[in-house]
């Protein structure tokens, strides 16, 4: 991160009085894979279009290698885009689509052919050079779009929901491909997506956006394990919530929480004061269906209402006696071949100390 290639400083953009991007700042490193994640309408695509030059910000600055990009039209910016719809030129063959950028830079002949062949090989599309885009499948068009965008050797590659039109299997395949490409090219990728799984698996850093601002910025692991708000937690992965209240701050700085008629102590956290309503957040894989629970840990009683076998895991839905539903996801225990539940079976739910995330209850 010492050398940032792209700097976004205080970008704002409004459409018809509606602020789509709001005072957005971000530094993107030399060969970093950054993902902008958020629900539709959160401003992530607009941000990409601001970087590419298709929109002009109302205020703020965009620097590429320290040079101000804003006075430059899209064609003069050393960034390239993989469009959501691929936007391949329907009247040009795959070869000519990929060669488009090079021809504009007056490259001809042997060198042109060599570089196009190289780019096509990189995305494994060499056998299709003579096809027209209309004769390719979605996944193949996607690969051509990537080859066309990287042939100009951009400093930053922008990807606008590039995989959203592909089926699940192809999407996972392309995720791995894109990741490999990014390593081989050593350039920064900025990916826009609303698919949290995609964001988690591909990014070096993840920017969760909401209403044009950064809701949370961090590594996928940080964002998943330590979401800083309920909104972020809800958007990324599944969650179970336990409402509670801060009972008191203990002498050692830890907090005593009241969860219904149970109590537990958690690590101290700034911004939480006695009396405040909180939500305890636990991922399905954090929950444990236990025989005996750990001393000092809360335990909830309920019955299994649904179980589904997922191959490596067993997902269960538990209806607590107090009326709420929980979702738990447990890995199979090799020492316990009978590990399974019947629907209706009574269980006790708890978790490993320290795995909970305590968030102020915003709602």
């Amino acid at each position, binding site marked *: 991160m010492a050398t940032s290639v792209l700097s976004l400083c205080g970008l704002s953009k409004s459409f018809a009085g509606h602020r789509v991007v709001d005072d957005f700042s971000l530094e993107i490193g030399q060969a970093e894979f950054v993902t902008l994640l958020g629900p539709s309408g959160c401003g992530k695509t607009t941000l990409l279009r601001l970087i*590419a*030059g*298709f929109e002009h910000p109302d205020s703020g600055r965009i620097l590429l290698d320290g040079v101000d990009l804003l006075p430059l*039209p*899209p*064609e*003069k910016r050393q960034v*390239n*885009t993989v*469009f959501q*719809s691929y*936007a*391949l*030129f*329907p*009247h040009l063959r795959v070869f000519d689509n990929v060669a*488009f*950028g090079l021809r*504009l*830079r007056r490259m001809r002949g042997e060198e042109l052919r060599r570089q196009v062949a190289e780019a096509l090989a990189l995305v494994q599309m060499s056998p299709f050079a003579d096809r*027209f*885009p*209309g*004769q390719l499948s979605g996944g193949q068009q996607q690969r051509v779009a990537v080859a*066309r*965008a990287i042939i*100009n050797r951009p400093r930053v590659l922008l990807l606008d929901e590039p995989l959203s039109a592909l089926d699940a299997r192809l999407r996972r395949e392309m995720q791995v491909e894109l990741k490999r490409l990014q390593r081989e090219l050593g350039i920064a990728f900025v990916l826009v997506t609303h698919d949290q799984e995609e964001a988690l698996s591909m990014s070096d850093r993840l920017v969760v956006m909401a209403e044009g601002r950064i809701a949370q910025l961090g590594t996928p692991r940080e964002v998943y394990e330590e979401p800083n708000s309920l909104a972020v937690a809800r958007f990324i992965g599944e969650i179970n919530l336990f409402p509670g209240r801060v009972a008191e701050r203990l002498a050692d700085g830890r907090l005593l929480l009241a969860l219904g008629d149970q109590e537990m102590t958690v690590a101290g956290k700034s911004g939480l004061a006695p009396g405040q309503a909180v939500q305890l957040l636990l991922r399905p894989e954090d929950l444990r269906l236990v025989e005996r629970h750990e001393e000092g840990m809360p335990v909830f009683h309920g019955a299994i209402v649904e179980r589904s076998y997922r191959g490596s895991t067993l997902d269960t839905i538990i209806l607590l006696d107090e009326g709420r539903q929980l979702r738990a996801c447990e890995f199979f225990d090799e020492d316990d071949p009978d590990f399974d539940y019947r629907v209706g079976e009574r269980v006790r739910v708890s978790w490993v100390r320290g795995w909970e995330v305590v968030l102020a209850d915003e709602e």
Partner: protein
Amino acid sequence: MKSSGRTERLVTVLVSLWLVLFGVVPLLLLVATSFFAQDPIDFFRLAPSLESYRQLLDPGYLQVMRRSVQFAALTTLLCLLIGYPFAWYTSRLSRPARVLVLVLLMIPFWTNSLVRTYAIRMVLGSQGLLNQALLALGIIDSPLRLLYTDTAVVLGLFYLMLPFMILPLYACLEKLDYRLVEAARDLGAGFLQTLLRIVWPLSLPGVYAGCIMVFVPTMGLFYVATLLGGARQLLVGNLIQQQFLNARNWPLGSATSVVLILMMALMLTGYWLVLRRLAGRRRQ
């Protein structure tokens, strides 16, 4: 379901009848007439003859043919040069603005084109609006001879035919995926390169359609040539009109019409072939 199917069949039958009665039958009569011999009193004699087609090969007629092709080509080119940017910018306007422009473009159609041609005469005449304006501004000392020139004819043809160029172009450009333009710019293409490499080739079906819709009818617009160019034989249309109304040589008039129709058919076939080739590329 059943009744709508019946309605559909009824409409199809009526339209077919109409087409046969007012399209196919007259066309067959025309083609037949062109192969009969001329008769000064009865318009034509029921004797097979290729005389009319032979006459069309006379240098005089060939000259008219050549000249009207030149006029039509020039008009088409002018319409394309002005119509293309017009259609492009219109297609990029906001929806209400687009509708407004298109309505303004259609309004002249509510007036007969013959009337509008007379209006051009009023503008171009030696005492016309244009000359008066130029005189008043002191740009010229004596009225310019604008009317009864080839320029006036081309101007009139251009004015009448421009919408026929703009509408197919607009229809084509409006459908153009603007993301392709953005993709081209993203890859480094400036305005001109984007136009030449992306927009123009993708709008070729519209260009062909517009050119055909301007080129062929232009050759038949005899009254424009008469009113603005004087009573000279400028266009094939004038020739046809004269054969039917003045020279009373129906076979020759018919033969000339047949040639014009064949040209149209040829161009439409070319257009169809181009479209089919383009479609073949886009879908396997």
